[in-house]
Protein backbone atom coordinates (compact mmCIF):
# COMPACT_ATOMS: atom_id res chain seq x y z
CA UNK A 1 0.00 0.00 0.00
CA UNK A 2 2.69 2.40 1.06
CA UNK A 3 4.93 1.68 -1.94
CA UNK A 4 1.91 2.06 -4.16
CA UNK A 5 1.30 5.56 -2.91
CA UNK A 6 4.96 6.33 -3.41
CA UNK A 7 4.83 5.19 -7.01
CA UNK A 8 1.68 7.21 -7.70
CA UNK A 9 3.23 10.30 -6.15
CA UNK A 10 6.33 9.81 -8.24
CA UNK A 11 4.29 9.46 -11.40
CA UNK A 12 2.15 12.55 -10.75
CA UNK A 13 5.27 14.49 -9.97
CA UNK A 14 7.01 13.51 -13.18
CA UNK A 15 3.83 14.16 -15.17
CA UNK A 16 3.55 17.65 -13.72
CA UNK A 17 7.21 18.31 -14.48
CA UNK A 18 6.71 17.16 -18.06
CA UNK A 19 3.62 19.35 -18.47
CA UNK A 20 5.62 22.34 -17.24
CA UNK A 21 8.59 21.61 -19.51
CA UNK A 22 6.47 20.87 -22.56
CA UNK A 23 4.42 24.03 -22.17
CA UNK A 24 7.56 26.18 -22.02
CA UNK A 25 9.05 24.29 -24.96
CA UNK A 26 5.88 25.02 -26.93
CA UNK A 27 6.13 28.72 -26.06
CA UNK A 28 9.65 28.65 -27.47
CA UNK A 29 8.71 26.90 -30.67
CA UNK A 30 5.27 28.26 -31.45
CA UNK A 31 6.28 31.80 -32.54
CA UNK A 32 8.77 30.23 -34.93
CA UNK A 33 6.16 27.85 -36.27
CA UNK A 34 3.83 30.81 -36.72
CA UNK A 35 6.51 32.67 -38.66
CA UNK A 36 7.05 29.72 -41.03
CA UNK A 37 3.31 29.18 -41.38
CA UNK A 38 2.65 32.81 -42.30
CA UNK A 39 5.46 32.70 -44.83
CA UNK A 40 3.39 30.28 -46.89
CA UNK A 41 0.30 32.48 -47.11
CA UNK A 42 -0.78 35.31 -49.37
CA UNK A 43 -1.43 38.88 -48.39
CA UNK A 44 -5.18 38.24 -48.56
CA UNK A 45 -5.36 35.06 -46.53
CA UNK A 46 -2.81 35.95 -43.84
CA UNK A 47 -5.16 38.38 -42.10
CA UNK A 48 -8.20 36.12 -42.08
CA UNK A 49 -7.14 32.50 -42.06
CA UNK A 50 -6.04 31.56 -38.53
CA UNK A 51 -5.95 27.78 -38.96
CA UNK A 52 -2.75 26.14 -37.77
CA UNK A 53 -2.14 24.71 -41.23
CA UNK A 54 -3.36 27.25 -43.79
CA UNK A 55 -5.94 26.08 -46.31
CA UNK A 56 -3.82 26.91 -49.31
CA UNK A 57 -0.06 27.14 -49.48
CA UNK A 58 1.80 29.77 -51.41
CA UNK A 59 5.48 29.25 -52.12
CA UNK A 60 6.09 32.47 -53.99
CA UNK A 61 7.01 34.61 -50.98
CA UNK A 62 10.45 33.09 -50.64
CA UNK A 63 11.34 33.93 -54.22
CA UNK A 64 10.07 37.49 -53.78
CA UNK A 65 12.08 37.97 -50.59
CA UNK A 66 15.16 36.39 -52.12
CA UNK A 67 15.31 38.58 -55.23
CA UNK A 68 13.20 41.71 -54.75
CA UNK A 69 13.93 41.87 -51.05
CA UNK A 70 17.65 41.74 -51.76
CA UNK A 71 17.95 38.91 -49.24
CA UNK A 72 20.38 36.99 -51.44
CA UNK A 73 22.85 39.87 -51.13
CA UNK A 74 22.37 40.27 -47.37
CA UNK A 75 22.77 36.56 -46.76
CA UNK A 76 25.91 36.44 -48.88
CA UNK A 77 27.36 39.42 -46.97
CA UNK A 78 26.57 37.85 -43.62
CA UNK A 79 28.33 34.64 -44.64
CA UNK A 80 31.41 36.60 -45.77
CA UNK A 81 31.57 38.67 -42.58
CA UNK A 82 31.06 35.68 -40.33
CA UNK A 83 33.69 33.55 -42.05
CA UNK A 84 36.28 36.36 -42.21
CA UNK A 85 35.75 37.61 -38.67
CA UNK A 86 35.72 34.17 -37.07
CA UNK A 87 38.81 32.93 -38.91
CA UNK A 88 40.52 36.22 -38.07
CA UNK A 89 39.66 35.84 -34.41
CA UNK A 90 40.85 32.23 -34.27
CA UNK A 91 44.15 33.08 -35.97
CA UNK A 92 44.96 36.26 -34.02
CA UNK A 93 43.74 35.04 -30.64
CA UNK A 94 45.44 31.66 -30.83
CA UNK A 95 48.78 33.27 -31.70
CA UNK A 96 48.45 35.69 -28.81
CA UNK A 97 47.18 33.10 -26.34
CA UNK A 98 50.01 30.74 -27.27
CA UNK A 99 52.55 33.43 -26.56
CA UNK A 100 50.87 34.46 -23.30
CA UNK A 101 50.81 30.88 -22.15
CA UNK A 102 54.13 29.46 -23.38
CA UNK A 103 56.56 32.19 -24.37
CA UNK A 104 58.31 34.97 -22.48
CA UNK A 105 58.82 38.63 -23.19
CA UNK A 106 58.97 41.73 -21.03
CA UNK A 107 55.60 43.32 -20.36
CA UNK A 108 53.75 40.12 -21.11
CA UNK A 109 51.60 40.18 -17.99
CA UNK A 110 50.65 43.83 -18.38
CA UNK A 111 49.43 43.26 -21.92
CA UNK A 112 47.56 40.13 -20.89
CA UNK A 113 45.78 41.89 -18.03
CA UNK A 114 44.83 44.64 -20.46
CA UNK A 115 42.84 42.08 -22.43
CA UNK A 116 41.29 40.68 -19.26
CA UNK A 117 40.30 44.16 -18.11
CA UNK A 118 38.77 44.86 -21.51
CA UNK A 119 36.51 41.89 -21.00
CA UNK A 120 35.39 43.13 -17.60
CA UNK A 121 34.68 46.73 -18.54
CA UNK A 122 31.41 47.14 -20.39
CA UNK A 123 31.60 49.75 -23.14
CA UNK A 124 28.01 50.26 -24.20
CA UNK A 125 28.53 53.46 -26.16
CA UNK A 126 31.90 52.77 -27.72
CA UNK A 127 30.24 52.70 -31.14
CA UNK A 128 30.23 56.52 -31.19
CA UNK A 129 34.00 56.78 -30.93
CA UNK A 130 34.47 53.75 -33.13
CA UNK A 131 32.44 55.41 -35.87
CA UNK A 132 34.54 58.57 -35.55
CA UNK A 133 37.71 56.50 -35.86
CA UNK A 134 36.48 54.57 -38.89
CA UNK A 135 35.51 57.83 -40.52
CA UNK A 136 39.04 59.13 -40.00
CA UNK A 137 40.53 55.94 -41.44
CA UNK A 138 38.13 56.08 -44.42
CA UNK A 139 36.87 52.63 -43.51
CA UNK A 140 33.18 53.55 -43.34
CA UNK A 141 31.22 51.63 -45.96
CA UNK A 142 33.97 49.08 -46.48
CA UNK A 143 33.91 45.39 -45.70
CA UNK A 144 37.39 45.57 -44.21
CA UNK A 145 36.42 48.19 -41.63
CA UNK A 146 33.47 46.20 -40.37
CA UNK A 147 35.49 42.99 -40.25
CA UNK A 148 38.31 44.59 -38.24
CA UNK A 149 35.87 46.10 -35.73
CA UNK A 150 34.15 42.77 -35.25
CA UNK A 151 37.45 40.91 -34.82
CA UNK A 152 38.23 43.27 -31.96
CA UNK A 153 34.85 42.56 -30.33
CA UNK A 154 35.53 38.84 -29.99
CA UNK A 155 39.25 39.03 -29.26
CA UNK A 156 39.50 39.33 -25.46
CA UNK A 157 37.13 36.50 -24.66
CA UNK A 158 38.81 34.19 -27.19
CA UNK A 159 42.32 34.94 -25.93
CA UNK A 160 41.30 34.28 -22.35
CA UNK A 161 39.59 31.00 -23.22
CA UNK A 162 42.51 29.75 -25.31
CA UNK A 163 45.12 30.78 -22.75
CA UNK A 164 43.40 28.79 -20.01
CA UNK A 165 43.32 25.87 -22.42
CA UNK A 166 47.00 26.16 -23.40
CA UNK A 167 47.99 26.46 -19.74
CA UNK A 168 46.57 23.00 -19.10
CA UNK A 169 48.23 21.47 -22.16
CA UNK A 170 50.99 18.94 -21.32
CA UNK A 171 54.50 20.10 -22.15
CA UNK A 172 55.78 16.70 -23.31
CA UNK A 173 54.28 17.01 -26.78
CA UNK A 174 55.86 20.40 -27.18
CA UNK A 175 59.26 19.06 -26.17
CA UNK A 176 58.91 16.16 -28.58
CA UNK A 177 58.07 18.57 -31.39
CA UNK A 178 61.06 20.72 -30.46
CA UNK A 179 63.38 17.74 -30.60
CA UNK A 180 61.95 16.95 -34.04
CA UNK A 181 63.09 20.40 -35.12
CA UNK A 182 59.91 22.44 -34.78
CA UNK A 183 60.27 26.16 -34.18
CA UNK A 184 57.81 28.25 -32.17
CA UNK A 185 55.55 28.75 -35.14
CA UNK A 186 55.74 25.04 -35.87
CA UNK A 187 54.74 24.13 -32.33
CA UNK A 188 51.83 26.59 -32.48
CA UNK A 189 50.63 25.18 -35.78
CA UNK A 190 51.36 21.46 -35.39
CA UNK A 191 50.85 20.95 -31.66
CA UNK A 192 48.91 23.72 -29.97
CA UNK A 193 46.21 24.37 -32.56
CA UNK A 194 45.21 20.73 -33.18
CA UNK A 195 45.09 20.05 -29.43
CA UNK A 196 42.97 23.14 -28.81
CA UNK A 197 40.24 21.98 -31.17
CA UNK A 198 37.51 21.77 -28.48
CA UNK A 199 38.28 25.29 -27.25
CA UNK A 200 38.40 26.57 -30.83
CA UNK A 201 35.01 25.00 -31.50
CA UNK A 202 33.56 26.97 -28.57
CA UNK A 203 35.16 30.16 -29.87
CA UNK A 204 33.87 29.53 -33.38
CA UNK A 205 30.28 28.91 -32.36
CA UNK A 206 30.00 31.86 -29.96
CA UNK A 207 31.68 34.32 -32.26
CA UNK A 208 29.65 33.11 -35.23
CA UNK A 209 26.44 33.76 -33.33
CA UNK A 210 27.75 37.14 -32.29
CA UNK A 211 28.76 38.26 -35.78
CA UNK A 212 25.68 36.81 -37.47
CA UNK A 213 23.37 38.62 -35.06
CA UNK A 214 25.33 41.89 -34.75
CA UNK A 215 23.32 44.99 -35.56
CA UNK A 216 24.60 48.33 -34.29
CA UNK A 217 28.04 48.49 -35.95
CA UNK A 218 26.56 47.20 -39.19
CA UNK A 219 24.03 50.03 -39.04
CA UNK A 220 26.59 52.74 -38.41
CA UNK A 221 29.38 51.52 -40.63
CA UNK A 222 27.57 50.06 -43.63
CA UNK A 223 25.11 52.41 -45.27
CA UNK A 224 25.36 50.81 -48.70
CA UNK A 225 22.68 48.12 -49.19
CA UNK A 226 25.14 46.07 -51.24
CA UNK A 227 27.38 45.71 -48.16
CA UNK A 228 24.76 45.19 -45.46
CA UNK A 229 24.64 41.96 -43.49
CA UNK A 230 21.41 40.15 -42.81
CA UNK A 231 20.21 41.78 -39.58
CA UNK A 232 20.62 45.29 -40.93
CA UNK A 233 19.13 44.21 -44.23
CA UNK A 234 16.08 42.75 -42.53
CA UNK A 235 15.29 46.12 -40.99
CA UNK A 236 15.57 47.81 -44.39
CA UNK A 237 13.48 45.01 -45.81
CA UNK A 238 10.88 45.45 -43.10
CA UNK A 239 10.71 49.16 -43.79
CA UNK A 240 10.01 48.46 -47.45
CA UNK A 241 7.57 45.58 -46.88
CA UNK A 242 5.93 46.69 -43.66
CA UNK A 243 2.47 45.68 -44.82
CA UNK A 244 3.39 42.58 -46.80
CA UNK A 245 3.59 40.21 -43.86
CA UNK A 246 3.93 36.91 -45.76
CA UNK A 247 7.00 38.16 -47.63
CA UNK A 248 8.43 39.60 -44.43
CA UNK A 249 7.91 36.27 -42.65
CA UNK A 250 9.53 34.44 -45.56
CA UNK A 251 12.54 36.74 -45.18
CA UNK A 252 12.69 36.14 -41.43
CA UNK A 253 12.43 32.38 -41.99
CA UNK A 254 15.38 32.45 -44.35
CA UNK A 255 17.35 34.53 -41.87
CA UNK A 256 16.56 32.30 -38.90
CA UNK A 257 16.93 28.83 -40.42
CA UNK A 258 20.70 28.85 -41.15
CA UNK A 259 21.55 29.89 -37.61
CA UNK A 260 19.18 27.33 -36.10
CA UNK A 261 20.78 24.69 -38.32
CA UNK A 262 24.30 25.61 -37.23
CA UNK A 263 23.14 25.69 -33.63
CA UNK A 264 21.63 22.19 -33.84
CA UNK A 265 24.84 20.88 -35.40
CA UNK A 266 27.12 22.45 -32.77
CA UNK A 267 24.79 22.33 -29.81
CA UNK A 268 27.12 20.41 -27.49
CA UNK A 269 29.83 23.05 -27.76
CA UNK A 270 27.44 25.73 -26.57
CA UNK A 271 26.66 23.75 -23.44
CA UNK A 272 30.38 23.15 -22.98
CA UNK A 273 31.24 26.82 -23.40
CA UNK A 274 28.62 28.03 -20.98
CA UNK A 275 29.50 25.33 -18.46
CA UNK A 276 33.11 26.45 -18.50
CA UNK A 277 31.90 29.96 -17.78
CA UNK A 278 30.04 28.60 -14.76
CA UNK A 279 33.11 26.74 -13.56
CA UNK A 280 35.61 29.51 -14.21
CA UNK A 281 33.67 32.75 -14.12
Amino acid at each position, binding site marked *: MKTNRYVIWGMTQSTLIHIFLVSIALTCLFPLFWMVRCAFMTNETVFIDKALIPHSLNFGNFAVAWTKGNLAVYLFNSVIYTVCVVSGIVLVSSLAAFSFSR*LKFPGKNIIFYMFVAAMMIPL*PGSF*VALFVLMNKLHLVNTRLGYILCMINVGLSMSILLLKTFFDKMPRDLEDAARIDGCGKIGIWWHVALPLARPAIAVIVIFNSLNVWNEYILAT*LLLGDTQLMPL*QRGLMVFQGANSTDYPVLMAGLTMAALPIIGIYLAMQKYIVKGLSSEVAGG
Partner: protein
Amino acid sequence: MNSKIKAAAVFKDNAQNFFFVLPAFVIFCVFYIYPFLNMIFLSSHEWPGIGPMHFIGLQNYKELMGDNLWWDSMAHAGYITLIALVFQNALAFALALACDRQIRMKRFYCIVFFIPPVLSEVVVGLIWNWILNPELQNGVHIGLLNHLLYTSGWPQLVHNWLGDPKTALTTIAIVHSWKGFGWGFVMLLAGLQTIDKQLYEAARVDGAGPWRTFIHITLPLMLPVILVVMILTILGSMQVFVLILSMVNEGLVHHTDVPVIRILSSMTGTNRFGYACAEAVIFGVVLMGVSFIMKILSDRARQT
Protein backbone atom coordinates in the same frame (compact mmCIF):
# COMPACT_ATOMS: atom_id res chain seq x y z
CA MET B 1 81.80 39.79 -26.32
CA ASN B 2 80.10 36.65 -25.21
CA SER B 3 77.57 38.51 -23.11
CA LYS B 4 76.79 40.79 -26.05
CA ILE B 5 75.94 37.82 -28.23
CA LYS B 6 73.84 36.42 -25.45
CA ALA B 7 72.01 39.70 -24.98
CA ALA B 8 71.36 39.90 -28.69
CA ALA B 9 69.98 36.37 -28.66
CA VAL B 10 67.69 37.17 -25.72
CA PHE B 11 66.49 40.31 -27.47
CA LYS B 12 65.79 38.37 -30.65
CA ASP B 13 63.94 35.76 -28.66
CA ASN B 14 61.81 38.34 -26.87
CA ALA B 15 61.06 40.12 -30.12
CA GLN B 16 59.97 36.86 -31.71
CA ASN B 17 57.73 36.04 -28.76
CA PHE B 18 56.19 39.49 -28.81
CA PHE B 19 55.58 39.10 -32.53
CA PHE B 20 52.97 36.43 -31.72
CA VAL B 21 50.98 38.95 -29.70
CA LEU B 22 51.50 41.82 -32.11
CA PRO B 23 48.40 41.41 -34.34
CA ALA B 24 46.11 41.14 -31.32
CA PHE B 25 47.88 44.06 -29.62
CA VAL B 26 47.61 46.34 -32.64
CA ILE B 27 43.92 45.58 -33.25
CA PHE B 28 43.23 46.04 -29.57
CA CYS B 29 45.00 49.39 -29.35
CA VAL B 30 43.43 50.78 -32.51
CA PHE B 31 39.87 49.51 -32.07
CA TYR B 32 39.54 49.43 -28.30
CA ILE B 33 42.02 51.61 -26.42
CA TYR B 34 41.98 54.53 -28.83
CA PRO B 35 38.17 54.78 -29.14
CA PHE B 36 37.92 54.40 -25.37
CA LEU B 37 40.25 57.34 -24.73
CA ASN B 38 38.75 59.33 -27.57
CA MET B 39 35.29 58.83 -26.10
CA ILE B 40 36.40 60.49 -22.86
CA PHE B 41 38.14 63.25 -24.81
CA LEU B 42 35.09 63.92 -27.02
CA SER B 43 32.74 63.98 -24.05
CA SER B 44 34.19 67.34 -23.04
CA HIS B 45 33.58 68.90 -26.46
CA GLU B 46 30.71 70.17 -28.50
CA TRP B 47 31.13 68.61 -31.91
CA PRO B 48 28.65 67.93 -34.73
CA GLY B 49 30.72 65.10 -36.19
CA ILE B 50 32.63 67.21 -38.70
CA GLY B 51 34.39 70.56 -38.55
CA PRO B 52 35.94 72.24 -35.52
CA MET B 53 35.49 71.03 -31.94
CA HIS B 54 34.73 73.34 -29.06
CA PHE B 55 36.12 72.47 -25.67
CA ILE B 56 33.35 72.99 -23.12
CA GLY B 57 34.74 71.17 -20.09
CA LEU B 58 32.12 69.35 -18.06
CA GLN B 59 29.21 71.19 -19.69
CA ASN B 60 27.91 68.01 -21.38
CA TYR B 61 27.84 66.19 -18.07
CA LYS B 62 26.10 69.09 -16.36
CA GLU B 63 23.45 69.12 -19.06
CA LEU B 64 23.11 65.37 -18.80
CA MET B 65 22.36 65.56 -15.07
CA GLY B 66 19.25 67.58 -15.84
CA ASP B 67 18.25 65.66 -18.96
CA ASN B 68 14.93 64.01 -18.12
CA LEU B 69 14.81 62.00 -21.33
CA TRP B 70 18.12 60.43 -20.38
CA TRP B 71 17.15 59.50 -16.83
CA ASP B 72 13.76 58.24 -18.04
CA SER B 73 15.58 56.00 -20.50
CA MET B 74 17.76 54.75 -17.64
CA ALA B 75 14.62 53.99 -15.62
CA HIS B 76 13.11 52.12 -18.58
CA ALA B 77 16.21 49.96 -18.90
CA GLY B 78 16.15 49.41 -15.14
CA TYR B 79 12.52 48.30 -15.34
CA ILE B 80 13.26 45.83 -18.14
CA THR B 81 16.26 44.55 -16.17
CA LEU B 82 14.18 44.08 -13.03
CA ILE B 83 11.58 42.03 -14.87
CA ALA B 84 14.30 40.00 -16.55
CA LEU B 85 16.08 39.41 -13.22
CA VAL B 86 12.94 38.20 -11.47
CA PHE B 87 10.82 36.60 -14.16
CA GLN B 88 13.42 35.31 -16.62
CA ASN B 89 15.79 33.97 -13.98
CA ALA B 90 13.04 32.40 -11.87
CA LEU B 91 11.78 30.63 -14.97
CA ALA B 92 15.30 29.55 -15.93
CA PHE B 93 15.96 28.22 -12.42
CA ALA B 94 12.64 26.37 -12.26
CA LEU B 95 13.32 24.74 -15.63
CA ALA B 96 16.87 23.84 -14.63
CA LEU B 97 15.62 22.23 -11.41
CA ALA B 98 12.99 20.32 -13.38
CA CYS B 99 15.63 19.05 -15.80
CA ASP B 100 18.21 18.14 -13.14
CA ARG B 101 17.09 14.50 -12.79
CA GLN B 102 16.67 11.33 -14.79
CA ILE B 103 13.94 12.47 -17.08
CA ARG B 104 12.85 11.50 -20.56
CA MET B 105 13.38 13.95 -23.44
CA LYS B 106 15.91 15.94 -21.39
CA ARG B 107 18.11 16.54 -24.42
CA PHE B 108 15.11 17.75 -26.39
CA TYR B 109 14.25 20.32 -23.71
CA CYS B 110 17.84 21.50 -23.46
CA ILE B 111 17.99 22.02 -27.21
CA VAL B 112 14.62 23.76 -27.50
CA PHE B 113 15.14 26.20 -24.62
CA PHE B 114 18.26 27.55 -26.27
CA ILE B 115 16.66 28.23 -29.64
CA PRO B 116 15.35 31.74 -28.81
CA PRO B 117 18.79 32.88 -27.57
CA VAL B 118 20.50 31.95 -30.85
CA LEU B 119 18.04 34.01 -32.88
CA SER B 120 18.88 37.62 -33.55
CA GLU B 121 17.03 40.39 -31.79
CA VAL B 122 15.82 41.66 -35.15
CA VAL B 123 14.19 38.35 -36.03
CA VAL B 124 12.67 37.95 -32.57
CA GLY B 125 11.43 41.53 -32.52
CA LEU B 126 9.82 41.33 -35.94
CA ILE B 127 8.12 37.99 -35.23
CA TRP B 128 6.62 39.30 -31.98
CA ASN B 129 5.71 42.58 -33.61
CA TRP B 130 3.61 40.53 -36.01
CA ILE B 131 2.07 38.35 -33.31
CA LEU B 132 1.22 41.44 -31.24
CA ASN B 133 -0.21 43.36 -34.20
CA PRO B 134 -3.07 45.49 -32.83
CA GLU B 135 -5.06 46.05 -36.02
CA LEU B 136 -8.49 44.81 -36.96
CA GLN B 137 -9.50 43.95 -40.50
CA ASN B 138 -13.09 43.03 -41.42
CA GLY B 139 -13.80 42.30 -37.78
CA VAL B 140 -10.88 39.87 -37.47
CA HIS B 141 -7.90 40.62 -35.27
CA ILE B 142 -4.79 40.46 -37.44
CA GLY B 143 -2.39 39.77 -34.60
CA LEU B 144 -2.36 36.25 -33.25
CA LEU B 145 -2.41 37.21 -29.58
CA ASN B 146 -5.42 39.47 -29.81
CA HIS B 147 -7.16 36.92 -32.02
CA LEU B 148 -6.60 34.17 -29.45
CA LEU B 149 -7.73 36.40 -26.59
CA TYR B 150 -10.85 37.33 -28.52
CA THR B 151 -11.85 33.85 -29.63
CA SER B 152 -11.09 32.17 -26.31
CA GLY B 153 -13.49 34.40 -24.44
CA TRP B 154 -11.44 37.30 -23.14
CA PRO B 155 -12.39 40.09 -25.57
CA GLN B 156 -11.87 42.60 -22.77
CA LEU B 157 -8.15 41.71 -22.74
CA VAL B 158 -7.67 42.57 -26.41
CA HIS B 159 -5.17 45.38 -26.32
CA ASN B 160 -2.69 47.40 -28.33
CA TRP B 161 0.18 45.91 -26.36
CA LEU B 162 3.05 47.76 -28.02
CA GLY B 163 1.16 50.94 -28.84
CA ASP B 164 0.01 51.75 -25.35
CA PRO B 165 2.75 53.46 -23.31
CA LYS B 166 1.46 51.70 -20.18
CA THR B 167 2.00 48.18 -21.49
CA ALA B 168 4.73 48.68 -24.10
CA LEU B 169 7.71 48.37 -21.76
CA THR B 170 6.32 45.35 -19.94
CA THR B 171 5.57 43.63 -23.24
CA ILE B 172 9.10 44.32 -24.42
CA ALA B 173 10.51 43.03 -21.15
CA ILE B 174 8.53 39.80 -21.46
CA VAL B 175 9.69 39.22 -25.04
CA HIS B 176 13.23 40.00 -23.89
CA SER B 177 12.86 37.38 -21.17
CA TRP B 178 11.46 34.91 -23.69
CA LYS B 179 14.58 35.43 -25.78
CA GLY B 180 16.98 35.29 -22.86
CA PHE B 181 15.94 32.64 -20.35
CA GLY B 182 17.75 29.89 -22.29
CA TRP B 183 21.15 31.32 -21.30
CA GLY B 184 20.32 31.16 -17.62
CA PHE B 185 18.78 27.73 -18.03
CA VAL B 186 21.88 26.18 -19.59
CA MET B 187 24.25 27.77 -17.06
CA LEU B 188 22.12 26.95 -14.02
CA LEU B 189 21.62 23.38 -15.19
CA ALA B 190 25.39 23.02 -15.66
CA GLY B 191 25.80 24.34 -12.11
CA LEU B 192 23.20 21.98 -10.68
CA GLN B 193 24.89 19.02 -12.30
CA THR B 194 28.14 19.75 -10.49
CA ILE B 195 26.43 19.27 -7.11
CA ASP B 196 27.30 15.92 -5.58
CA LYS B 197 24.17 13.75 -5.60
CA GLN B 198 25.31 12.10 -2.35
CA LEU B 199 24.51 15.34 -0.54
CA TYR B 200 20.87 15.01 -1.54
CA GLU B 201 20.93 11.39 -0.48
CA ALA B 202 22.40 12.29 2.91
CA ALA B 203 19.79 15.01 3.42
CA ARG B 204 17.01 12.57 2.59
CA VAL B 205 18.35 10.03 5.06
CA ASP B 206 18.44 12.77 7.69
CA GLY B 207 14.75 13.33 7.03
CA ALA B 208 14.89 16.63 5.14
CA GLY B 209 12.02 17.20 2.72
CA PRO B 210 12.47 18.59 -0.80
CA TRP B 211 11.94 22.18 0.35
CA ARG B 212 14.56 22.03 3.11
CA THR B 213 16.98 20.22 0.83
CA PHE B 214 16.53 23.05 -1.66
CA ILE B 215 17.06 25.79 0.93
CA HIS B 216 19.98 24.22 2.75
CA ILE B 217 21.87 22.40 0.00
CA THR B 218 20.92 23.50 -3.50
CA LEU B 219 20.64 27.23 -2.93
CA PRO B 220 23.90 27.82 -1.01
CA LEU B 221 25.90 25.67 -3.44
CA MET B 222 24.33 27.39 -6.42
CA LEU B 223 24.84 30.93 -5.15
CA PRO B 224 28.02 31.64 -7.18
CA VAL B 225 26.40 30.42 -10.40
CA ILE B 226 23.22 32.37 -9.66
CA LEU B 227 25.29 35.52 -9.21
CA VAL B 228 27.13 34.97 -12.50
CA VAL B 229 23.78 34.54 -14.26
CA MET B 230 22.51 37.69 -12.53
CA ILE B 231 25.51 39.77 -13.65
CA LEU B 232 25.07 38.61 -17.23
CA THR B 233 21.33 39.30 -17.07
CA ILE B 234 21.89 42.83 -15.77
CA LEU B 235 24.56 43.67 -18.34
CA GLY B 236 22.51 42.15 -21.15
CA SER B 237 19.19 43.72 -20.19
CA MET B 238 20.50 47.21 -19.49
CA GLN B 239 21.98 47.32 -22.99
CA VAL B 240 18.95 45.92 -24.83
CA PHE B 241 17.87 48.11 -27.72
CA VAL B 242 17.78 46.29 -31.07
CA LEU B 243 14.78 44.33 -29.82
CA ILE B 244 13.03 47.60 -29.01
CA LEU B 245 13.89 49.17 -32.36
CA SER B 246 12.53 46.17 -34.22
CA MET B 247 9.41 45.83 -32.05
CA VAL B 248 8.13 49.39 -31.83
CA ASN B 249 9.69 50.99 -34.89
CA GLU B 250 10.11 54.35 -33.22
CA GLY B 251 6.35 54.40 -32.94
CA LEU B 252 6.29 55.54 -29.34
CA VAL B 253 8.06 58.82 -28.86
CA HIS B 254 10.41 58.37 -25.88
CA HIS B 255 8.13 55.97 -24.01
CA THR B 256 10.34 53.02 -24.83
CA ASP B 257 13.70 54.78 -25.00
CA VAL B 258 16.63 53.05 -23.35
CA PRO B 259 20.12 54.52 -22.84
CA VAL B 260 21.65 53.03 -25.98
CA ILE B 261 18.81 54.45 -28.06
CA ARG B 262 19.41 57.87 -26.46
CA ILE B 263 23.13 57.66 -27.28
CA LEU B 264 22.31 56.65 -30.82
CA SER B 265 19.83 59.46 -31.30
CA SER B 266 22.20 62.06 -29.83
CA MET B 267 24.74 60.88 -32.34
CA THR B 268 22.77 60.30 -35.53
CA GLY B 269 19.63 62.30 -34.75
CA THR B 270 20.91 65.60 -33.41
CA ASN B 271 24.56 65.20 -34.44
CA ARG B 272 25.87 65.94 -30.97
CA PHE B 273 28.83 63.58 -30.83
CA GLY B 274 30.25 65.07 -27.64
CA TYR B 275 26.98 64.74 -25.81
CA ALA B 276 26.57 61.15 -27.05
CA CYS B 277 30.03 60.35 -25.68
CA ALA B 278 29.17 61.89 -22.31
CA GLU B 279 26.06 59.71 -22.19
CA ALA B 280 28.14 56.69 -23.11
CA VAL B 281 30.68 57.44 -20.36
CA ILE B 282 27.99 57.85 -17.69
CA PHE B 283 26.23 54.70 -18.82
CA GLY B 284 29.50 52.77 -18.80
CA VAL B 285 30.25 53.98 -15.26
CA VAL B 286 26.79 52.89 -14.08
CA LEU B 287 27.19 49.44 -15.61
CA MET B 288 30.67 49.09 -14.18
CA GLY B 289 29.41 50.06 -10.74
CA VAL B 290 26.65 47.48 -10.89
CA SER B 291 28.90 44.68 -12.08
CA PHE B 292 31.52 45.66 -9.48
CA ILE B 293 28.97 45.32 -6.67
CA MET B 294 27.83 41.98 -8.05
CA LYS B 295 31.46 40.83 -8.32
CA ILE B 296 32.06 41.62 -4.65
CA LEU B 297 28.93 39.72 -3.72
CA SER B 298 29.96 36.73 -5.78
CA ASP B 299 33.47 36.68 -4.28
CA ARG B 300 31.91 36.71 -0.84
CA ALA B 301 29.56 33.89 -1.84
CA ARG B 302 32.51 31.84 -3.05
CA GLN B 303 34.40 32.24 0.22
CA THR B 304 31.62 30.99 2.46
